[in-house]
C-alpha cells in the first residue's frame, strides 16, 4: 500500500508543476484547452493526494510498523481514534495532511465558484497547484511519511500521551483548516493581480472563503486553548508560547482583512492595503507552520528540528518577493476611488481597527522573534514572556474592544453631532452604570474593570441596533416584533451575524479578564489532611486528600489521587481525581515520560483545577497544585457564540433585492454607497 502512496506523491509533484504552468499560460493566452486543463489538474491533484492519504491511513490502521512513521506514532494498543489522529500527529504526516486539505479546498474552489468569476480561475488553479507542489515537495524530499525501516519492530512507540486527548484529536486539524483555507482567498487575490482584473469581482468571490477560514482559525485557536488547559496542567489556557502566537498572527491579520474589505466594497478605498493584508495572512500562516516545524524557536508545541525549516524559509522568501512584485507592478490599478470625508466616520473607525490589529500582530511577532533579533543585534539572547505580551496587548485589546462598539454606531462618511448623541447615549449610560456597580462591588483590578465596562458598552450598542432595526420594521411593515426581528436578521445576515460574532468577542474578553483573579496554592497532604483556598467570589473551599490508588488501564499505568471538596463547609460535588499516567506499549514497557492529567470542575463562575504532582517516597502523601480559575468556561461559550454568528452570516441564499430579484452580492447591506449619499443615517439600511 505504501508503494501506492509513494507513487501518488511523485505523481502529485508532476501534477502540481503542470497545474502551475498551465494555469498561468491559460490565463494569459485565454486558451480554453489550457484553462480546462488547469481546472482538471486541480481535481486530479485532489484525487491523487487522497490516494496517498488513504494509503498512509491504511498503514496506520493496519499497524504496519515497517513504515517508520507508523512505528514512531502508534502502537498496537493505541485506540483507533488516536491511530487515525496520528495521521497529523507527526511532522511528515501533518505535511501530507496539509497538502490533502489544500487540494480538496482548491478543488472545491474550482467547483463552487460561480461562472462570472471564471476569468480568475486558471490563475487560482496556478496558485493553489503551486502551494500544493511545495507541500508535496517537502513530504517527498524532507519528511516522507512512507519511509520504511530496515527491520520491522514488534510494536510501535505509541502516540505522545499529551496527544491522547479528544481535544488533540480535533484541535490541530481545525487549526490547519484555518491556516490552509487562507490559501484560497490569497489565491484569488493573486489571480486578480495576475489578470489585472482588480474590480470588486475577486472580493465578492472570496467573501465566504474569508469568513470560513477566519472561523476555522478562531475555533482552532480556541480548541488549542482548551487542549492546553486540560492537558498541559499548568492551570491556564494561553501562555504566549511561540506556537500559540503563530496561530494568533494570521487570525489578527484576517480579522483586519474581514473589516477593511467592507471599506473597499462600500467606498472603493484601501485597495492596496487589502491586498497587503490577505498576502500577509497567507505568509503568516506559512510562517506559523515554519515556526512549529523548524525548531528555530523552542516551544512546547513544536516538532523536532529538521531540514524542513529550510524548505519553508525558501518558500516564504519566494512568496514575499512574488507578492511584493505583483502589488508593486499593479499599484496604478489599485488606486483609491474616494477619500476620507471625516475623522468621525465609520471608515475612520475601521481604519483604527486595522491599525490596532496590525499593531498587535506586529508586537506579537516582534516578541516571538525577539530572542533571535536580540541575538543578532546585541549578541545576547533576550527573551520576553507573558508579562511583555500582556503589558502590550491588554491595552491594545481594550482599544479594539471599544472600537467593536463604536464602529457599528457611527455613520458612514461623516457622523453628525445628532447622529453621535442618538447612537451613543444609551450604550454609554449602560457602561457607566456597570462601571459604578463594579466599583461598588469592590472590583479593584483596573484592566479587568475596563474589560467589563467596555464590554457592557459594546453589548449595549449591539442590543440597541437590534432593537432599533426591529422597531423600524415593526412600524413600517406592521410586522409583529418577533417576525420583524427574524426578518431583520434574515435579510441582513452579514450585518447581524457580525454583531453576534462581536458578542462572542465580548464574552472572550470577559473570560480573559477573569484571569486577573486566578488564585493558586500548592500543598503536600497526607490522607485525611486538608487545605483551604478562598475564591475571588468570597467562598472558602476546603480540599481534603482522600488517598492515592494505582491501577492499570488500556495502555497505561495510572496513579490517581482524589480530593474531596467542600464550599463554605457544605459538600461541593463529587471528589476530583487527578492522575499521573505512565504509558506503556503492549509488552508493558514504558513509552514516553509520565504525564499528568488535571482534574477540572467546570462551573460558569469559576473552575476548580487540581493537579496531582506526585507522591512522597511511595507513601500516600500527595503533592497537589490547586487553582481557582474564574470565568474560564466563558472562553468556550464565547467561541460557540462566535461560531453561531458566523453561521448566521454564512447561511446560504442571497438577499432578496428591491424588485424581488436575487442579487446575492450587490444588494442590501452589501450595497455600495452611491457617490451622493445622504450623510445622516437613520436606520435606512436596515429596511432593505
Amino acid at each position, binding site marked *: 500500500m505504501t508503494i501506492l502512496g509513494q507513487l501518488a506523491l511523485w505523481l502529485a509533484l508532476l501534477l502540481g508543476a503542470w497545474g502551475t504552468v498551465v494555469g498561468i499560460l491559460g490565463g494569459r493566452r485565454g486558451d480554453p484547452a489550457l484553462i480546462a486543463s488547469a481546472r482538471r489538474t486541480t481535481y486530479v491533484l485532489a484525487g491523487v493526494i487522497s490516494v496517498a492519504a488513504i494509503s498512509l491511513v491504511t498503514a496506520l490502521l493496519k499497524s504496519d510498523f515497517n513504515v517508520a512513521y507508523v512505528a514512531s506514532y502508534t502502537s498496537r494498543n493505541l485506540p483507533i481514534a488516536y491511530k487515525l489522529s496520528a495521521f497529523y500527529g507527526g511532522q511528515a504526516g501533518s505535511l501530507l495532511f496539509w497538502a490533502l486539505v489544500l487540494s480538496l479546498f482548491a478543488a472545491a474552489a474550482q467547483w463552487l465558484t460561480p461562472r462570472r468569476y471564471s476569468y480568475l480561475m486558471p490563475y487560482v488553479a496556478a496558485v493553489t497547484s503551486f502551494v500544493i507542489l511545495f507541500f508535496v515537495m517537502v513530504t517527498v524530499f524532507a519528511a516522507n511519511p512512507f519511509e520504511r525501516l530496515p527491520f520491522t519492530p514488534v510494536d510501535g512507540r505509541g502516540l505522545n500521551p499529551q496527544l491522547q486527548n479528544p481535544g488533540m484529536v480535533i484541535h490541530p486539524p481545525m487549526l490547519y483548516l484555518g491556516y490552509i483555507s487562507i490559501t484560497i482567498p490569497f489565491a484569488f487575490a493573486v489571480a486578480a493581480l495576475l489578470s489585472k482584473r482588480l474590480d470588486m469581482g475577486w472580493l465578492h468571490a472570496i467573501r465566504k472563503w474569508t469568513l470560513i477560514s477566519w472561523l476555522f482559525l478562531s475555533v482552532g485557536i480556541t480548541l488549542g486553548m482548551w487542549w492546553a488547559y486540560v492537558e498541559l496542567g499548568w492551570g491556564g489556557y494561553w501562555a504566549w508560547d511561540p506556537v500559540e502566537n503563530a496561530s494568533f498572527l494570521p487570525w489578527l491579520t484576517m480579522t483586519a482583512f474581514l473589516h477593511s474589505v467592507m471599506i473597499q466594497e462600500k467606498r472603493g478605498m484601501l485597495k492596496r492595503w487589502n491586498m497587503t493584508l490577505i498576502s500577509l495572512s497567507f505568509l503568516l500562516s506559512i510562517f506559523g507552520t515554519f515556526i512549529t516545524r523548524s525548531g528555530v524557536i523552542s516551544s512546547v508545541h513544536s516538532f*523536532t528540528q529538521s531540514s524542513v525549516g529550510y524548505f519553508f524559509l525558501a518558500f516564504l522568501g519566494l512568496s514575499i518577493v512574488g507578492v511584493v512584485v505583483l502589488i508593486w507592478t499593479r499599484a496604478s490599478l489599485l488606486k483609491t476611488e474616494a477619500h476620507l470625508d471625516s475623522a468621525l466616520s465609520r471608515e*475612520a473607525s475601521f481604519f*483604527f481597527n486595522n491599525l490596532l490589529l496590525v499593531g498587535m500582530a*506586529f*508586537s506579537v511577532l516582534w516578541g516571538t522573534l525577539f530572542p533571535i533579533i536580540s541575538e543578532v543585534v546585541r549578541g545576547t539572547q*533576550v527573551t520576553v514572556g507573558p508579562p511583555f505580551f500582556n503589558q*502590550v496587548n491588554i491595552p491594545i485589546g481594550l482599544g479594539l474592544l471599544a472600537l467593536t462598539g463604536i464602529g457599528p454606531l457611527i455613520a458612514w462618511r461623516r457622523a453628525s453631532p445628532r447622529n453621535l448623541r442618538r447612537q451613543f447615549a444609551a450604550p454609554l449610560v449602560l457602561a457607566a452604570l456597570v462601571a459604578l456597580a463594579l466599583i461598588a462591588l469592590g472590583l479593584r483590578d483596573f484592566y479587568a474593570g475596563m474589560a467589563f465596562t467596555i464590554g457592557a458598552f459594546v453589548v449595549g450598542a449591539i442590543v440597541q441596533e437590534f432593537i432599533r432595526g426591529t422597531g423600524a420594521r415593526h412600524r413600517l411593515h406592521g410586522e409583529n416584533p418577533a417576525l420583524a426581528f427574524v426578518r431583520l436578521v434574515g435579510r441582513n445576515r452579514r450585518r447581524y451575524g457580525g454583531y453576534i460574532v462581536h458578542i462572542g468577542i465580548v464574552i472572550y474578553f470577559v473570560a480573559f479578564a477573569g484571569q486577573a483573579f486566578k488564585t493558586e496554592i500548592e500543598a503536600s497532604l497526607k490522607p485525611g489532611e486538608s487545605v483551604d483556598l478562598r475564591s475571588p467570589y468570597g467562598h472558602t473551599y476546603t480540599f481534603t486528600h482522600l488517598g492515592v490508588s494505582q491501577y492499570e488501564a488500556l495502555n497505561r499505568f495510572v496513579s490517581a489521587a482524589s480530593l474531596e471538596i467542600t464550599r463554605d463547609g457544605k459538600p461541593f460535588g463529587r471528589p476530583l481525581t487527578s492522575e499521573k499516567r505512565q504509558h506503556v506499549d503492549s509488552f508493558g514497557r514504558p513509552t514516553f*515520560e509520565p504525564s499528568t492529567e488535571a482534574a477540572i470542575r467546570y462551573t460558569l463562575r469559576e473552575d476548580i483545577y487540581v493537579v496531582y504532582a506526585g507522591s512522597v517516597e511511595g507513601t500516600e502523601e500527595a*503533592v497537589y497544585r490547586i487553582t481557582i480559575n474564574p470565568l474560564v468556561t466563558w472562553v468556550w461559550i464565547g467561541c460557540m457564540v462566535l461560531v453561531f454568528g458566523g453561521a448566521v452570516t454564512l447561511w446560504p441564499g442571497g438577499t432578496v433585492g428591491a424588485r424581488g430579484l436575487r442579487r446575492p452580492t450587490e444588494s442590501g447591506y452589501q450595497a455600495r454607497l452611491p457617490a451622493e449619499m445622504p450623510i445622516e443615517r437613520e436606520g435606512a439600511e436596515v429596511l432593505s
Partner: protein
Amino acid sequence: MRAPTKVLIAGILVLGTVGYLMATGIKETGVYFVTPSELAAKVSADPSFHDVGVKMGARVVNGSIERNVATQTITFQVTDGEQTYPVVYRGLAPDTFTDDVEVVVEGRLQPDGTFRATTLLAKCGSRYEAVPGA
C-alpha cells in the same frame, strides 16, 4: 484641518503608543537567555550581574537531582559542558524533568554561586517526535 490629516495624526499617535508599550515592555520584562559559560563570563566581567534575573538553558547533570519533598525543594546541577552551576528550585517540577534533560531555569545567581530558580522548564526535544533509535 482636513480629515485625512487628522486621522493620520491620530494613527501616528496610536502607532506611537504601541511602539512605546513594546519598548517599555521589553525593557521591563526582557530577560537574558544565557548558557552557563555565558553567565560565568558576564558575572566575571560585571559582578553586579548577580542581581539581574536571567534565564539559563543547560543540561541536567546525571544523578545530581535531589528532591526534598518535605520542603518541596529540588536541588540539581546544570552544565553546558564547560561551566556547571548548582541550582535550587522550590516548587513542582514538570513531568519531563529527569536526568540529562535540557532545562531552562529562570532566576538569579546568588553570591555563593548557586542559582536560585523561580521557574523550571524541562525541554523535551522528543516531545512530539520519537527519538530515533529509542
